[in-house]
């Protein structure tokens, strides 16, 4: 250019410079034209950018508690998961897989390697090792805290592909956006909630998506992928039983409605056989797939599929409909008879174990209340009221029935699956509050179908009139359709305005949904539970960190081999943060041991002393919230201690602790209540017999601890 601008050159160079100027401007115009994308590319750009935004949104909406307090692990169960992940990263996989822990459930100990679901820990450890390999010096705690939001973002991507498989890509985008902020999912996957469900919901949706894809395409590769997805789910959460019962139920419904096909045969057989073999690699699951009553439905449907295939083959060979009918009747009778006989023999001989209490109480909700007080006492296991549904779903509760209607309009293998998933998961969500989490992906997908179909209808109305105004007649089928729509439009003059108004209404409703979700996440689901906040007298925010201070005191000031007795809620936290042996913890597998602790807490002091001597207890931890009005302390949980203790030791009777059927803890309480161990430990005056209990009082921020005996 300088050479061209330089003066005193020949006219040829001047002409050459003019030519380069012209070609430069031509290339500039040409590049502007190439920036204008074709419609398909525009659509792809919009889709990819929406998905990226949704991915980031799902991650950052779960970070409230990290920003407010600090990056720490919440609640009770995640502390056990954190401790095991720490062990895994320090000692390696072999040590972790064969770990026997003598620090929990003293004096019994616990075979941790064989009694946990390793998926979560292995996932976090893999992320940690890969980040370390890239020379990012992160601490394992940060990885654990942020695992759940990361997997929530991945779930939105899987939801997009699933929606695309079910309906179309528009429904997929809406599904991804809805599931990114839905409070039902956020409640268990907020940053710091390092629990199995954070990873398990991703695995659940992935397995379902891969299986539906396999049924739609009939390809062995997709079926294989779904088997591996099932393996990941089995390794991650005990809720895999839902998958292994829903998929056979779905196959059965397809068979009944006459949708048997080779694709279904390939997909189900590959997934069942491979998935079962892979699931047996997890020590905790073991041989349950062939031995437990909860898994027998899958096996029954597997054999039924073989019968169907055999009948199909015989029909193809026979070419005689009447003979085939007779053969069909004989075979079906024989197959059903043999199946029932095998099931009966297996159940009677005890080889096939009956449904465990936890899952049986889902089918018969009144069972747990009468027979298993431990299961009934957990607050997450209570049945669901309408307000919990509204709180966790908001708009989606209206869109769910509408989405069901649209699915029934366009019945296919995939929509039948999502309808079944939605209905069964909604029923279970009604039985137990905790299972709203499992229902959330189904509700989001079906609602996305409703939103997508409605908005498509409305926008077609909005665009139809303008199409008629712009295009002339005789443009082929689209022209005739437009003209016919115009003739119908003429009968409804304000149709376009009405459609625009309805579109605005739909966007208003969705924006209210987003507001609600953000409010719920911020106020209700971002509490770490181990750090409590309250409003002080002047409206300032007061933070109570008493739990962690108490555990740290235990870690610093007690001998290394001290044994701590507390109610089972705090066991995991004491072991993880206090680093001391506990008597019972949150993995409530031994009812008698917990009942012994409950009996000690609710007996008179001399009896309690004998029990604690026999358990070799050095310290007792009690939570008392009277000074600040903290409502979920041990005094409020006391009736459950009585019920669980009384379930095993008939000496403890619940009516002894009640006054006129009412539970009181003040001066007007029952005499047994006034003198039992829990209450005397929470009184302010010191007691002079041997057991001075450790307790801490909220609000005073100082703690008083007693001394061990001997």
């Amino acid at each position, binding site marked *: 250019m300088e050479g061209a601008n330089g003066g005193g050159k020949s006219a040829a160079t001047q002409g050459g410079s003019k030519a380069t100027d012209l070609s430069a401007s031509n290339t500039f115009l040409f590049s502007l034209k190439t920036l204008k994308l074709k419609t398909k590319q525009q659509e792809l750009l919009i889709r990819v950018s929406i998905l990226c935004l949704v991915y980031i949104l799902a991650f950052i909406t779960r970070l409230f508690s990290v920003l407010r307090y600090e990056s720490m692990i919440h609640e009770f169960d995640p502390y056990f998961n954190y401790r095991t992940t720490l062990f895994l990263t320090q000692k390696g996989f072999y040590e972790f897989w064969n770990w026997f822990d003598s620090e929990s459930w003293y004096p019994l100990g616990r075979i941790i390697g064989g009694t946990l679901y390793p998926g979560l820990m292995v996932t976090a450890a893999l992320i940690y090792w890969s980040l370390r390999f890239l020379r990012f010096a992160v601490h394992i705690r940060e990885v654990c805290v942020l695992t759940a939001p990361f997997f929530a973002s991945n779930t939105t991507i899987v939801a997009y592909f699933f929606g695309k498989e079910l309906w179309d890509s528009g429904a997929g985008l809406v599904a991804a956006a809805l599931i990114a902020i839905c409070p039902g999912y956020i409640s268990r996957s907020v940053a710091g909630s390092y629990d199995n469900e954070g990873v398990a919901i991703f695995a659940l949706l992935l397995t379902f998506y891969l299986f539906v894809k396999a049924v739609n395409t009939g390809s062995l590769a997709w079926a294989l992928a779904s088997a591996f997805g099932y393996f990941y789910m089995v390794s991650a959460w005990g809720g895999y039983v839902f998958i292994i019962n829903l998929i056979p139920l779905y196959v059965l419904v397809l068979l009944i*409605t006459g949708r048997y096909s080779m694709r279904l045969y390939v997909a189900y057989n590959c997934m069942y056989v491979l998935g079962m073999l892979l699931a047996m690699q997890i020590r905790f699951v073991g041989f349950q797939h062939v031995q437990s009553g909860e898994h027998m439905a899958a096996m029954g449907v597997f054999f039924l599929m073989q019968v169907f295939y055999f009948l199909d083959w015989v029909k193809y060979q026979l070419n005689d409909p009447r003979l085939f009918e007779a053969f069909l009747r004989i075979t079906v009778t024989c197959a059903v008879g043999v199946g029932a006989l095998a099931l009966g023999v297996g159940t009677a001989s005890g080889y096939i174990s009956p449904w465990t209490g936890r899952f049986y109480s889902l089918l018969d909700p009144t069972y747990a209340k009468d027979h298993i007080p431990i299961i009934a006492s957990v607050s997450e296991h209570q049945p*669901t009221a309408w307000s919990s549904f509204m709180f966790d779903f908001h708009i989606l509760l*209206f869109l769910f029935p509408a989405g*069901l209607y649209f699915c*029934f309009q366009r*019945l296919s293998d995939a929509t039948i699956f999502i309808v079944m998933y939605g209905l069964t998961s909604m029923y279970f969500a*009604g039985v137990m509050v905790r299972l709203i989490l499992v229902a959330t992906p189904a509700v989001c997908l079906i609602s996305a179908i409703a939103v997508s179909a409605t908005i498509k209808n409305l926008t077609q109305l909005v665009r139809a009139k303008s199409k008629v105004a712009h295009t002339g007649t005789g443009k082929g089928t689209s022209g005739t359709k437009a003209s016919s729509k115009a003739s119908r439009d003429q009968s*409804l003059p304000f149709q376009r305005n009405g459609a625009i108004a309805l579109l605005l209404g739909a966007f208003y409703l969705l924006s209210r949904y987003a507001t609600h979700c953000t409010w719920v996440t911020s106020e209700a689901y971002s509490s770490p539970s181990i750090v409590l906040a309250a409003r002080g007298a002047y409206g300032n925010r007061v933070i109570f960190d008493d739990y962690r201070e108490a555990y740290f005191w235990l870690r610093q000031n007690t001998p290394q081999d001290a044994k701590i007795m507390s109610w089972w809620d705090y066991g995991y936290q004491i072991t993880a943060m206090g680093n001391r042996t506990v008597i019972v913890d949150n993995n409530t597998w031994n009812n008698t041991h917990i009942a012994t602790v409950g009996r000690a807490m609710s007996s008179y002091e001399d009896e309690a002393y004998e029990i604690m001597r026999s358990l070799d207890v050095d310290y007792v931890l009690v939570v008392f919230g009277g000074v600040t009005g903290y409502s979920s302390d041990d005094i409020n949980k006391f009736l459950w201690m009585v019920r669980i203790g009384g379930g095993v030791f008939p000496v403890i009777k619940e009516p002894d602790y009640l006054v006129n059927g009412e539970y009181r803890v003040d001066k007007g309480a029952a005499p047994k209540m006034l003198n039992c161990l829990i209450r005397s430990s929470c009184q302010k005056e010191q007691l002079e017999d041997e057991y001075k209990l450790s307790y801490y009082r909220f609000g005073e921020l100082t703690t008083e601890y007693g001394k061990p005996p001997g």
Partner: protein
Amino acid sequence: MAPKPESQTTSSSPVHTTSDDSSIDPILHILKIFPYGLLRLPRFRLKLPTLRLPSSMAVFSLLLLTYFAVVSGIVYDVIVEPPGIGSTQDRHTGAVRPVVFLPGRVNGQYIIEGLSSGFMFVLGGVGIVLLDLALDRNRARSVKVSFASAGVASVVISYVMSMLFLRIKIPAYLQ
């Protein structure tokens, strides 16, 4: 593949015997000799009922009813057995006043509040279905207009009422 419906035509016997002779069913042959060789069947006019799968819309209405039951918290009602409606006593006058919404907890309800909220949710869903029916089909204009207005009214009413219920139940909502 559904089991073939048992719609056998038990009309005249000659047709019956020819199909029996070519049957490969051993039990049928045994039964032909004893006892049916001795008995004589009277002429029936009975027909076994045919099992047909219900239409998809019938299944949909059944599912809508189930959804209404679950979302109203019927399992909570059965297990916890709350009263139909709560009551408080006015401190000054001593009169007993009814309380519709259980205060203080998110996961608790009285029976009537559960049923009314569930009805609102189903009404909203039905409203959206009505909107789709109004926009899509080749129906008469008046029917389409009435469907559309009913649909819009249903959605608006159900949304407003549900928000009202939620605000009464959780006083600190959206503050």
